[in-house]
């Protein structure tokens, strides 16, 4: 008998590799159907304006145009956490670029010509573009109707203001904490709006057929959530809505929830029987899909001379944009993680989501955390230097550890951050730093190291659940029916590994098909680094269920107790008797007994998972014994070279260490880290959406919104710590988002060590560094 193959911790080849290197993989934009129509959207030309008149009559008459819709045709509000958004502007446009009308026509050329025939009369309203002005009393309101909007209980809008969520942490007694402090450090930090910029722009096809059923094919991280939002908004039963999700060409949060797909629904309903297709242009991708909100914050920390933090006060203001249906949750996530990786006894955090007349803020990889850690992790270095302590040493004193509490008062166990920090420091060759870098005269380039930590929990409702179905084919191959999305993170590979491990079949014999809400097992969304953890558990259970059935068949087939049979390498066998074995195929549809009677029947295993024991945070204090499913920790150290004359930072080396609990596939895990590090580097050095004084985006293209190219990649050293997650499969927890969070602050800290300057506003462009150096 062959040894049981162990797939856990093994670098199997990605299950999607062949499809993707041969060009066979299909994405939403690759789909083509008979009778298909092409959609173009007319977009608003003001950041804030009343729609006085929208006249599409000429467009409707253009030959080849099959459907035209405007906001009043479909005034349904939608939203995942706060129901504040219509697919097309109704009465008002609230950002420059908001859809005003949509056209479906026989060709994209005709659709675009039709857009030019739609007459729109605007009455300009004062735009709300400055985040800090927007919160002042008397500011024009972006949503005067905010108090009427439905929202989930965990969101706290402030009626008759621009604040769509106010999240609070009140832990211990901050005044007392500051009174005990020997040193108080206070500073402000800023992150600009940025874009996910997946290489695949948003794309979707919608069909409303003659029986009144809506089918959407979409590049989406959230087929089931999309169905739910549409069902709730349209008051349709879910069995009238079907969402199919082919491969996603990069999501990073931007394809979560309901997005551009909503604009297709009324067009499809007017062009009955015609699939209507929208592929966003890169300009639309930059401006008119979710963006990461800008955030301005003030952070104040009290610390004892011995390095122990006594109190923290944190105010964050989020530039939420025109609609904050998803963005409100970013605010919340940044609030409950506002202690970072530190054990801080007394805390006061206020995180405000603010409406502005800017593009719609939404989730972006590690949302809330990339932003608040930009502040926290620089702040920690600043405090360390004020105390004359090494930043690693200072962090070690304050790190969360066994029995510590975080911002929510949750008592923590099995905390891996200490090991991560130690390992990252070791890998980069950390040597004690106790102050700013000093520039010797005549030196043009300097090298230095910096370090930063992070933690993040999945920001999701307490009922975010997963299911899995394992079906055996006649020949013993397996259909793993799950509805996690393959975004590139390797979900299909890792989930297949778990299935193979538990069921005892070969990894190669398992297939996962594209998500289809009509046929697929339920999945909340592919977000929050939760798939390996949550869907992984469901797969584990489903595979075990299928294996139990297989062993039951085998027990009758071989005439032995069920406990005496096992499955490995696609064979079912009697333990200890290698001669008595059959391929899984023999028993997949049931067992044929010696008298030729059948037993059992086709095998279908089922599994489900919901994180248990999560308790809602108190509305006033944010306190909860278990506010989230789990926390993942990590640390990154970087080495940079700074060109002092140009101000240019080159990242030479990055050491990244994460506590993955258990690594299921070391290659896909390391690849995630590398990708995250480079995205983090890109955000740190290059990325910013720039707006003019009228709220127009100035750089909606790769010409002037630069992302890292292959020429920017540093040497990357990736390592994992494995402190098991109690309820994770084999102890695994998510790392997908975490890996880009600490890169920018680690670079900022290295910059300080190089030249004694800080740039507290992202990105750290050559110009901004140069000015900081000049001021010094």
């Amino acid at each position, binding site marked *: 008998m062959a040894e049981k193959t162990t797939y856990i911790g093994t670098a199997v080849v990605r299950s999607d590799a062949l499809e993707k290197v041969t060009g066979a993989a299909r994405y939403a934009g690759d789909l083509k159907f008979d009778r298909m129509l092409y959609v173009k959207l007319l977009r608003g030309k003001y950041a804030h304006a009343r729609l006085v008149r929208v006249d599409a009559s000429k467009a409707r008459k253009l030959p080849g145009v099959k459907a035209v819709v405007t906001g009043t045709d479909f005034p349904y509000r939608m939203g995942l956490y706060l129901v504040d958004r219509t697919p097309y502007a109704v009465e008002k446009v609230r950002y420059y670029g908001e859809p005003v009308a949509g056209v479906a026509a026989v060709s994209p050329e005709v659709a675009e010509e039709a857009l030019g025939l739609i007459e729109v009369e605007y009455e300009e309203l004062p735009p709300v573009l400055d985040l800090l002005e927007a919160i002042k009393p008397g500011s024009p309101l972006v949503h005067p109707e905010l108090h009427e909007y439905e929202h989930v209980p965990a969101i706290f809008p402030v009626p008759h203001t621009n604040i769509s969520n106010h999240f609070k942490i009140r832990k211990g007694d901050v005044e007392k904490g500051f009174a005990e402090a020997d040193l108080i450090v206070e500073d402000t930090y800023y992150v600009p709006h940025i874009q996910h910029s997946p290489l695949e722009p948003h794309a979707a096809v919608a069909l409303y057929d003659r029986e009144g059923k809506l089918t959407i094919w979409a590049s989406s991280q959230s087929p089931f959530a999309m169905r739910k939002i549409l069902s709730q908004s349209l008051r349709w039963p879910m069995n009238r809505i079907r969402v199919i999700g082919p491969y996603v060409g990069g999501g990073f949060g931007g394809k979560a929830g309901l997005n551009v797909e909503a604009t297709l629904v009324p067009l499809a309903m007017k062009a009955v029987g015609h699939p209507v297709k929208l592929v966003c242009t890169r300009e639309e991708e930059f401006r008119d899909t979710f963006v990461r909100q800008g955030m301005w914050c003030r952070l104040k920390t009290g610390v004892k001379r011995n390095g122990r933090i006594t109190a923290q006060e944190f105010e964050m203001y989020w530039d939420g944009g025109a609609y904050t249906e998803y963005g409100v949750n970013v605010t919340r996530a940044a609030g409950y993680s506002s202690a970072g990786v530190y054990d801080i006894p007394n805390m006061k955090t206020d995180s405000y989501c603010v409406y502005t007349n800017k593009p719609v803020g939404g989730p972006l990889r590690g949302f809330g955390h990339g932003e608040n850690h930009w502040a926290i992790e620089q702040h920690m270095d600043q405090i360390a230097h004020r105390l004359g302590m090494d930043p690693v040493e200072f962090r070690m004193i304050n790190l969360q550890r066994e029995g510590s509490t975080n911002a929510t008062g949750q008592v923590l166990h099995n905390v891996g951050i200490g090991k991560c920090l130690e390992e990252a420091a070791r890998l980069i060759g950390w040597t004690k730093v106790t102050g700013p870098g000093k520039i010797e005269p005549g030196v043009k380039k300097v090298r230095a190291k910096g370090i930063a930590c992070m933690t993040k929990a999945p920001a999701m409702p307490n009922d975010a659940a997963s299911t899995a179905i394992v079906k055996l084919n006649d020949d013993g191959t397996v259909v793993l029916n799950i509805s996690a999305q393959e975004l590139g993170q390797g979900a299909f590979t890792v989930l297949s590994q778990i299935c193979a491990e538990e069921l005892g079949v070969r990894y190669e014999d398992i297939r996962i098909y594209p998500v289809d809400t009509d046929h697929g097992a339920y999945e909340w969304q592919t977000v929050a680094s939760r798939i390996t953890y949550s869907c992984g558990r469901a797969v584990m259970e489903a595979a075990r269920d299928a294996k139990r059935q297989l062993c039951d068949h085998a027990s009758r087939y071989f005439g032995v107790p069920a406990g005496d049979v096992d499955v490995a390498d696609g064979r079912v066998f009697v333990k200890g008797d290698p001669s008595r074995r059959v391929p899984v195929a023999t028993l997949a549809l049931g067992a044929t007994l010696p008298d030729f009677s059948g037993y059992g029947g086709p095998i279908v295993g089922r599994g489900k998972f919901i994180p248990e024991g999560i308790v809602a945070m108190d509305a006033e204090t944010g306190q909860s014994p278990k506010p989230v499913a789990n926390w993942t920790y990590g640390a990154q150290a970087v080495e940079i070279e700074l060109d002092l*004359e140009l101000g240019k930072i080159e990242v030479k080396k990055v050491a990244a260490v994460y506590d993955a609990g258990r690594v299921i596939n070391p290659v896909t895990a390391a690849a995630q880290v590398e990708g995250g590090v480079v995205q983090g580097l890109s955000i740190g050095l290059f990325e910013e959406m720039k707006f003019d004084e009228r709220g127009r985006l100035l750089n909606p293209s790769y010409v002037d919104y630069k992302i890292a190219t292959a*020429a920017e990649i540093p040497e990357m050293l990736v390592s994992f710590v494995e402190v098991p997650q109690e309820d994770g499969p084999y102890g695994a927890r998510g790392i997908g988002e975490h890996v880009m969070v600490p890169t920018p602050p680690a670079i900022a800290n290295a910059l300080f060590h190089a030249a004694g300057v800080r740039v507290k506003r992202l990105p750290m462009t050559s110009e901004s560094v140069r000015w900081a150096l000049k001021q010094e």
Partner: protein
Amino acid sequence: MLLPFDYVRARSREEAVDLALRAGADGKFLAGGTDLLVRMHDRQLRPQMVIDLKGVSGLQGVSCCDGEGLVIGAATPLNRLIRDEAVRSKYGLLAEAAHTVGSLQIRNRASLGGNISNASPAADTAPALLLYEAEIVTWGASGRREIPVGEFFKGPGATALAEGEFVSQIRLPVLKERSYGVYLKLGRTSAVDLAIASVAALALEGGEVRIALGAVAPTPIRVKEAEAILRSRKDEGAIREAAAAARRRAAPISDIRASKEYRLEMTEVLAARAIEQALAGLAAGGR
């Protein structure tokens, strides 16, 4: 997706000019298309007629006439130029500058004629052409013209080309002395970016050092004031003075890529580095 237009492949210089004159403002010449088609895609331009010049004789390739320098067909893709032995050995600065344009894919299409005809202040090949004192050969309603490159650029997007006129060749006069050229370009990313500021320096065996700037004035400019400083002295102090002179000549704008002030400072920094490296290269043997 592009919006409809008519494409015509001109078979001769005369036909190209004729088509362009008839189309007037609705006509656009096409060579590599890496600028024109982008603007059409972005709906900044909507020509009714696109006149492809790639089939016109004399517009392709590099020819070397003994003792008379080099003639480059305006529609020659930059990669062909970069790989051309005559260009590399004698006009290395042009190859180096062309190498910084866009990506490899772009350089397989983008042409030298297109790069200068668009008259971007940041056109990477322009400073090198200024320093080699290139002649721009054009064809138009009045036939053939030769325009010194220094008189070709008139402002951002504006050239000496008349309506219906196009660049057919770029002539590089013979360079008898050994020389060494350096092109320094500061972008945001390390590859595939437009210049925030750029400086070309060409050190000649006879003692002359030529300097030109990109992206820091309405046109690419040559800085004779800086060159004059270096005619007799090439010590560290002279390099610093020349770099400061370059900065004084620069008249940049603030835009999305950088502020005016940063561009001014970088002009000085890059100029000093370029001069230093060009002198060192020449001392090490040159080209």
